[in-house]
């Protein structure tokens, strides 16, 4: 039995988000909140309090009319792999309330284990983690609409996007029942992926060359840096090795994905061996 398990092929679930297709409608945010029992309040204008596992950012090229361009950027948890499965948040958690699963590549968050020190929030360079300042209060009758597959959180713990991991669990249940150990590409898709009306989000196993996500970004073997044209990751330079990839045909968008110096060429940063450009 031991051999069986160690021979299981490791997946690396991730996403490719095509920013050229994203219209900024926010359907991914809504789908995510209802799928994952994310609490909300009557007044959501106080953004320091609000929780959005999937967050939509509005980027502009800061040029005056008529050259102004706008781009919307959906931001889930990046599920960083780091160098060897050590994402920034996992490294700092004193409670082992979050860990990196080498089988799926998903960074977990265990709410019953978290005691709310918020180190992980400080460590995360993507602001993907949120703190529950209050117990969730659901509008009357809405408890009946909560998903039984995701445990609701209480005041005092941190939460974040799980890549709809419960959907993986359920899909695996079906696979086990049918005597399989591997999932088909369509069997495990995140809620935001399915909700996007523009088809801007693609979800799958980055390790599997037959999956769309792999074909779209062609991640390099070491460090996962995308080799496809127009593909980039957020803050590539930090070496967090995220599993969320973005596509954009606009250079200014790709440059906003990281802190570029004026003389640095787009896409040239984040390589393991820095190249001289002078």
């Amino acid at each position: 039995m031991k051999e069986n398990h160690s021979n299981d092929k490791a997946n690396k679930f991730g996403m490719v988000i095509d920013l050229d297709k994203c219209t900024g409608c926010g359907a991914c945010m809504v789908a995510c909140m209802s799928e994952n029992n994310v609490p909300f309040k009557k007044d959501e204008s106080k953004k320091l309090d609000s929780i959005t596992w999937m967050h939509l950012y509005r980027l502009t090229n800061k040029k005056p009319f008529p050259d102004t361009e706008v781009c919307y950027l959906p931001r889930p948890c990046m599920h960083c792999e780091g160098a060897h499965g050590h994402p920034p948040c996992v490294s700092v958690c004193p409670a082992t309330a979050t860990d990196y699963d080498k089988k799926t590549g998903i960074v977990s968050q265990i709410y019953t284990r978290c005691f709310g020190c918020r180190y992980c929030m400080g460590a995360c360079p993507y602001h993907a983690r949120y703190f529950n300042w209050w117990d969730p209060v659901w509008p009357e009758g809405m408890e009946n609409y909560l998903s039984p597959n995701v445990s609701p959180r209480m005041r005092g713990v941190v939460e974040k996007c799980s890549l709809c991991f419960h959907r993986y669990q359920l899909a695996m249940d079906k696979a086990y029942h049918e005597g399989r150990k591997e999932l088909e590409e369509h069997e495990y898709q995140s809620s935001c992926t399915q909700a996007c009306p523009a088809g801007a989000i693609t979800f799958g196993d980055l390790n599997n060359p037959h999956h769309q996500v792999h074909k779209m970004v062609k991640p390099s073997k070491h460090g996962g840096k995308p080799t496809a044209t127009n593909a980039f990751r957020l803050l590539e330079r930090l070496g967090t090795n995220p599993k969320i990839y973005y596509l954009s045909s606009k250079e200014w968008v790709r440059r906003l994905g990281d802190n570029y110096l004026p003389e640095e060429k787009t896409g040239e940063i984040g390589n393991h061996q820095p190249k001289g450009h002078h």
Partner: protein
Amino acid sequence: MSASDDNVKDVPSDNHEEGHGNGSIGFVILFFVVGLIGSLLTGWVLFPKLLYSQKEQPIDFNHQIHMDAVSDGCESCHFFREDGSFSGVPTIAQCIECHEEAQTEDPNEIKLVQEYIANGEEVPWLVYARQPDCVFFSHAAHKEMDCTTCHGDIGHSENLKTYEENRLTGYSRDIWGHNIGGFKKNTWDRMKMDDCAECHERETGSKGPCFQCHK
């Protein structure tokens, strides 16, 4: 206590002090023993009684009779659905298949038919093995194992035991285990995370990532 009589006569004052000292040590030991037994009784008998409320099942279900009547063992009533999820405790729809009318004069069956089946109401079974909300347990992943490995020989029991509910957490006592100290002899004596991890480590070589069993 009683030293030799000679000593008593020779040095009465000393003897008096000695006797007094011995007596107080005796009292100390007595109080200690009484206190220890008292605390142990409080911790082992009184505290569990206070901590757990006792509830009887709505119907005293006899597994043995049903086991004799069905062909497919446990899976006749506790089966997997097509999507790989586990049905768990049967619904009234499954009971109706056989019990649309009472087949015997057993008061439990009559209660089932008259109170639940006739009204189309679900039986509010108390589930001994229900895990806390944050736990994801996949029966499908464990389906190569025997039911009895984790659940014990429930299939051949004639009565349902009293359900004990933790007044603080609302969980079944079977999760923490019957022994208040957490000792266990059988797999089904306790169903805490450590018990899952113990078997996972033995069988798969690691306790597994958090999300394997959490949601």
